[in-house]
């Protein structure tokens, strides 16, 4: 299968800050690539280069076989971009916004109107179509933003943190729309900070950190690398937790968590581990205060792959990627 997007040894620096340091990935046509990483990892920079907004410093960047530097116009005619912000004009109505983007995409005027009507209906904005966007909710703005990215029927769609800042309902609504787009043949490159989102939407996931690709694969493959299940056993005090760790250490890679009261255990055999944990604790006469089985989160992926949590560590790497939501989990 040929690639809709091909990136090889992509490099970009902002002054002394290296945003992308030799990134490689490819997105086969009709699939979704999830570009996963914390703020400042270089996700947005990669999207900006591929959408011809930024110039790269080195490497290959091709969209539909077109070099983004050699023929940016050719690329622009065939891609759609929905960014971190709902980039719509507040003072125009929903349909005027789509008209504006259609005109600026150089479509035939007679094709823009029916296309706008279609999209507004599809995104359940038809009743708000003639209202200024100023009156829209956050979710409605995002949907209009996505509709605007689709006016010219792009073959490749770039979604830069499309659901950041949305409520859960808005998020799942947007996910369904994206799924449908892909079913109909659109290739999607999606950046996100949420493993859950990449898990749900992406055929393939590329994890980047500090401008490097640190892992690649399907969601299942990535999770398998860290253990499919994480068991968190809470104890009443630090001493009990230490004993617990000694007991449970034999069952898999384990660690005592930040507060010193919780032992975290990674396992590959799913819920089966719970039985072993309970048996081992019972044998030693240790009583856990809590017992939680959960799937790995993005933080777990990062802790395992990089040794640091998925929160941004320094502010200077944020330079080109502000506005993202911060993750707040204590570093290990």
């Amino acid at each position, binding site marked *: 299968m040929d690639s809709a997007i091909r990136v090889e040894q992509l490099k970009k620096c902002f002054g002394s800050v290296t945003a992308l340091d030799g990134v490689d990935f490819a997105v086969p046509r009709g699939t979704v690539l999830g570009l996963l990483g914390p703020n400042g990892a270089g996700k947005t920079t990669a999207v*900006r280069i591929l*959408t*011809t*907004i930024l110039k790269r410093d080195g490497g290959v960047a091709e969209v539909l076989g077109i070099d983004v530097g050699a023929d940016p*116009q050719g690329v*622009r*005619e065939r*891609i759609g*971009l929905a*960014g*971190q*912000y*709902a*980039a*719509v*004009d*507040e*003072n*125009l109505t929903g349909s*005027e916004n789509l008209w*504006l*983007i259609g*005109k*600026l*995409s*150089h*479509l*035939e005027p007679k*094709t823009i109107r029916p296309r706008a009507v*279609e*999209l507004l*209906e*599809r995104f359940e904005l038809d009743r708000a179509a003639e209202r*200024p966007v100023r009156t829209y909710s956050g979710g409605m703005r995002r949907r209009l933003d996505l509709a*605007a990215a*689709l006016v*010219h*029927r*792009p*073959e490749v769609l770039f979604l830069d943190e499309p659901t950041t800042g949305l409520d859960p309902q808005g998020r799942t609504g947007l996910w369904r*729309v994206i799924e*449908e*787009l892909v079913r*109909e*043949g*659109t290739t999607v490159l999606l950046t996100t900070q949420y493993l859950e989102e990449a898990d749900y939407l992406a055929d393939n996931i590329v994890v980047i950190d500090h401008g490097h690709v640190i892992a690649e694969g399907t969601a299942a493959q990535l999770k398998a690398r860290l253990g499919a299940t994480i068991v968190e056993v809470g104890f009443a005090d630090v001493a009990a937790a230490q004993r617990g760790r000694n007991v449970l250490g034999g069952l898999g890679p384990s660690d005592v968590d930040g507060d010193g009261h919780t032992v975290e255990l990674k396992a590959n055999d799913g819920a089966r581990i719970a039985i072993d944990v309970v048996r081992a604790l019972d044998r030693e006469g240790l009583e856990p205060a809590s017992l939680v089985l959960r799937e790995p989160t993005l933080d777990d992926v990062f802790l395992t792959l990089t040794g640091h949590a998925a929160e941004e560590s320094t502010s200077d790497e944020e330079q080109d990627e502000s506005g993202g939501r911060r993750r707040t989990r204590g570093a290990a």
Partner: protein
Amino acid sequence: MTATVISPAAVERPKRSAFAWAVADTKTIAWRNLVTLRRLPQLLVFATIQPVIFVLMFRYVFGGAIHIQHGSYVNYLMPGVFAQTVAFGAIQTGIGLAEDLHKGLIERFRSLPMARSAVLSGRTLADLTRNVFVMVLMIAIGYLVGFRVQTNVFGLLGGMAVMLFFGFSLTWIFAIIGLSTTNAESAQAASFPILAPLVFASSAFVVVGTMPGWLQGFAKYQPLSIAIDASRSLMLGGIYSDTGKVFASIAWSIGIIAVFAPLAIRRYRKAA
């Protein structure tokens, strides 16, 4: 929910030259900015509040203390107020661009196959259109407080045209400021220190001859004074007649555009 609604497909694009597209895109962006003006007519009113206050203040408060050798002070004053109006109006260009940048609209525009120059030319043309309305309003207000054109309707229109062209040239300077800041507030804050000396150290409100010698050199030859003198020449004639100033003002405006429009477009390419 039919399968054809959002699916990708080849779209037809009319074939046109790059220049024709630039003109079409400029019209589209200008339309977009003018819709905002139509939808929020209070912007037009706000644009006239400050100059109206100046008219009232200089006409009725300071005016009595300012002595003009020939003709009435209100006739002398109004071309100065017109200049002040277009000059402060030009800040709006920068504010508008800074807002578009802040909200991510510029980023989207840059991912579209539209002409790179259109975001700026569309914005400055929309602001020129807005200035036409503001100028007509200001002339009406001038008439209410006693301003009378001393030449004829061509003088009036010519004086307006010189002033509007000068205002248009200034919008390119403020476009650069708007694209260099990240929000409306800082665009506004950065613009005022540039405008204040242009507007106040000028022939707008008082005769330059009353200023200290060191200031006269600047006040006499700076472009805002020239534009004011040019429109006085056209609107008032008589003692103010000076065709050379009219040409000088047009030359200034062309020069400002020739320097700052390419700089603004370059700035736009790099912004965001």
